[in-house]
């Protein structure tokens, strides 16, 4: 009886041990991985290797140049060798992680009949007019015409000419080394019209470490999809001056042609307003020698802030806002001049602030006060005002004065105020800047995901990242093959996609749970379940250990 009872309890004990072992097995082998998998943050797969490859991307910027030789420009045996292509490649020495190479692909050819006819006309402007009607030039490409050394198309002392469209004219030479010499001149001209180190340095100014403090390179606006331009008239003294300005006409005639020429660089919207009783924050000082008031240069930075809060620029749009203010000084402070560092009054009576806008002071003709009583009606001369504002707009966009090679004649600007190859320069700079920004954003997203383990990446964010990576690669390809407009569009898409991925609101989904809080949550759930299992495992193990040792003792 006792033996049967003992056998029964032994069976129970064995069953109990097996049950405990099964519990432990299920908990450890099945439960633990399941819990781990279901509580990890969801991360859709991202192309990490491609993103790190972007950092080592080699950017090759190709400028296709067509060089057209007229009959008397080079020696005859050189003319026999036409047509052929010469490539000139140079690395831009910038301390940036991406290597940038500038490649000028010159396609030499002979001039066609109508080109010969055009280039033998009286003045270079007529020649240009005849040549321009014939074909549309793709963005980013240039055409250089080589004329005879003694041609009268250019003034005698000028060796070359840069036109407002994408054309230039260079004098040829009758020499053995004609091609080399002319090739060098062409490269100089082509660089002035498209890409120089300065243009690229300005574009990459935010990404280069050392040049933080150079003011020239911090002037341009950052690349953005669109811009909002606001013209404001500030009239602090409406009792004395009844100011009228025909802003609609001026915008229609002068500003929109300029912005339409720039339309490839972004969407623009223009608005205007008039503010009364808006003072400058600084009191002007009186200059007894000229009976006028002046604003010294060091007080100019303090002018903008008190006025800015009244401009209402924050309500306008999400695009960056450029403010252009026209200030008509009060009667008590008229006339008002701005002084530069040497104490001389500035000719334009205007100043600008990088990435903000510009301010111009408009002094009223003192003759207007003679006959009439206050308020005096003032009709603002919009042409004078727009000349300054458009010049400031050019500077704010980073369209600087070009560095022309020596003995080169630069044509006057077009009616719109922008030459076509200046737009090309802007697009080159913007494309490079966009690619740099997109690459930085993607790389920093990858780094962040490595550092902070709580960021969730949903599927649509992952698809934006893939799209951004593809757009960067496409933009690099297009730049290497010389298609500027499609490269710019691709680079904009890359920036938009990468910013959308980085700033997606869902990335902040899980706030941080420090380790002690995690313990505090899991211990009440796991401890009651884990303790019996562990204790029974320990007991089983000890018994097994004892049973192993017993046979030894007997033996």
């Amino acid at each position: 009886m006792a033996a049967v009872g003992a056998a029964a309890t032994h069976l129970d004990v064995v069953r109990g041990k097996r049950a405990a072992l099964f519990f432990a097995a299920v908990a450890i082998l099945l439960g633990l991985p399941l819990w781990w998998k279901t509580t990890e943050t969801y991360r859709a797969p991202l192309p990490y290797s491609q993103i790190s490859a972007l950092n080592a991307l080699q950017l090759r910027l190709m400028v296709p140049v067509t060089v057209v030789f007229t009959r008397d420009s080079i020696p005859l045996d050189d003319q026999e060798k036409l047509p052929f292509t010469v490539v000139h490649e140079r690395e831009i020495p910038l301390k940036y992680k991406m290597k940038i190479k500038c490649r000028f692909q010159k396609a030499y050819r002979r001039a066609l009949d109508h080109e010969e006819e055009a280039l033998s006309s009286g003045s270079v402007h007529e020649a240009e007019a005849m040549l321009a009607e014939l074909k549309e030039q793709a963005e980013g490409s240039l055409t250089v015409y080589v004329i005879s050394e003694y041609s009268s198309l250019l003034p005698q002392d000028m060796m070359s000419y840069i036109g407002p469209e994408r054309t230039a004219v260079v004098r040829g030479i009758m020499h053995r080394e004609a091609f080399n010499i002319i090739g060098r001149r062409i490269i100089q001209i082509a660089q002035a019209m498209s890409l120089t180190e300065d243009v690229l340095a300005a574009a990459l100014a935010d990404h280069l470490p050392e040049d933080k403090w150079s003011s020239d390179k911090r002037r341009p606006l950052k690349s953005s999809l669109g811009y909002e331009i606001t013209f404001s008239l500030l009239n602090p003294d409406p009792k004395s001056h009844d100011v009228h300005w025909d802003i609609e006409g001026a915008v229609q005639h002068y500003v929109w042609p300029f912005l339409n020429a720039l339309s490839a660089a972004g969407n623009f919207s223009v608005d205007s307003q008039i503010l009364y009783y808006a003072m400058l924050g600084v009191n002007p000082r009186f200059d007894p020698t000229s009976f006028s008031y002046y604003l010294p240069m060091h007080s100019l930075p303090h002018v903008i802030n008190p006025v800015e809060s009244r401009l209402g620029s924050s309500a306008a749009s999400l695009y960056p806002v450029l403010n252009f203010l026209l200030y008509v000084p009060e009667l008590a402070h008229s006339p008002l001049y701005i002084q530069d560092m040497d104490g001389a009054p500035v000719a334009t009576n205007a100043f600008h602030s990088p990435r903000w806008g510009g301010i111009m002071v408009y002094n009223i003709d003192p003759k207007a006060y003679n006959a009439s009583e206050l308020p005096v009606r003032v009709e603002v001369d919009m042409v004078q005002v727009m000349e300054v504002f458009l010049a400031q707009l050019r500077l704010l966009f980073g369209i600087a004065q070009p560095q022309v090679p020596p003995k080169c004649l630069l044509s006057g600007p077009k009616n719109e105020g922008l030459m076509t190859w200046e737009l090309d320069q802007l697009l080159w700079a913007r494309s490079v800047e966009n690619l740099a920004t997109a690459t930085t954003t993607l790389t920093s997203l990858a780094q962040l995901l490595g550092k902070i383990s709580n960021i969730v990446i949903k599927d649509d964010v992952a698809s934006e990242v893939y799209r951004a990576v593809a757009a960067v690669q496409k933009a690099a390809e297009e730049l290497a093959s010389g298609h500027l407009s499609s490269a710019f569009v691709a680079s904009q898409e890359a920036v938009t996609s990468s910013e959308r991925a980085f700033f997606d609101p869902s990335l902040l989904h899980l706030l941080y749970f420090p380790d002690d809080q995690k313990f505090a949550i899991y211990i009440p759930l796991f401890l009651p379940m884990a303790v019996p299992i562990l204790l029974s495992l320990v007991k089983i193990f000890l018994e097994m250990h004892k049973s192993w040792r017993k046979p030894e003792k007997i033996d």
Partner: protein
Amino acid sequence: MAAPCFFSRLWRAALALLALGSLAASQIEDQAKQFFRSGHTNNWAVLVCTSRFWFNYRHVANTLSVYRSVKRLGIPDSHIVLMLADDMACNARNPKPATVFSHKNMELNVYGDDVEVDYRSYEVTVENFLRVLTGRIPPSTPRSKRLLSDDRSNILIYMTGHGGNGFLKFQDSEEITNIELADAFEQMWQKRRYNELLFIIDTCQGASMYERFYSPNIMALASSQVGEDSLSHQPDPAIGVHLMDRYTFYVLEFLEEINPASQTNMNDLFQVCPKSLCVSTPGHRTDLFQRDPKHVLITDFFGSVRKVEITTETLSLQRDSQITESSYKEDRMDEELMEPLKYAEQLPVAQIIHQALLAEVWTLPSAPCGMLGSRSWPATFTGSVLQLVTSPVHVLSQSSELHKVQF
């Protein structure tokens, strides 16, 4: 003869070298000065008050006082993100409604007329704060609620409320830990959303909040060390609560002497509120900051000084004379049309107001209402409103008749 020539040449050479040397030295000095200057082009401020309820009046007063100083020194409202519970000024327990005072005896009303609160009441949450900092805001958010800083922005972040060792309490319902804050700053750094950051915190055990920062270019100040409490400054017997915290009170006294052109540096700010005045020991952290604090101007963070350049070039535009003349004529015509319309004289406002005063809105239907006269409408509320509505219309029709005559 040769010796004096030689000596004079030597003397001249020495002078030239000296001149060159001083020129080089001044150039180096200029470069050095430039090097120590901050490279920022715009300033932003994020001011957060994390408490609500009447007895936390001082936190709202703290934040509003810092807001006033920052505005006075030049940062515009469009560059300030102000997060307040904003339940003080119109609180039922406020003996002076629509005011928030920061000095006792009601000397200084920091609420004023032009406070622009961007996140108020229940919008001040940890999530919104982190979204503002990192920029991960839903696309429908208006521009005034965003921190649109870039890589050349100096940002001032001021936080006040109740805190503990490693956390800050938001609105009595949630907390933000120092690790979350450090991660948020790291996300800002990765996206280059700031050039330099100044973090000021006025809570109990405030120094614990900046212990975990690891991103570069951050300078932090706190009102008390770990294990210490920040104390409040002065109660006001009329309002019945404490008005300000000590640390912020002395910081504001310090800021009152700063104007937009002053050259005071950060080392002076570190000395503000010593233990004798503040009872707690203020702390600061500068190891993550690249420049030396004595070269950092207060106005680099609290004010907004812009870089300006004189415009020296102009374009030359062609005058389009026809257009300007015709537009001038249009203006003239508009003016002539505009002159007769002077509504202030034509609308007998006094009559309307007098009528409105007479309207007995709440009378019973049977009571005679003088202005209704012979009309059979019931003298109810709607009836009198209709009368009010019709009488201006009546008067307006008179005015249009006048207008027609003059035209």
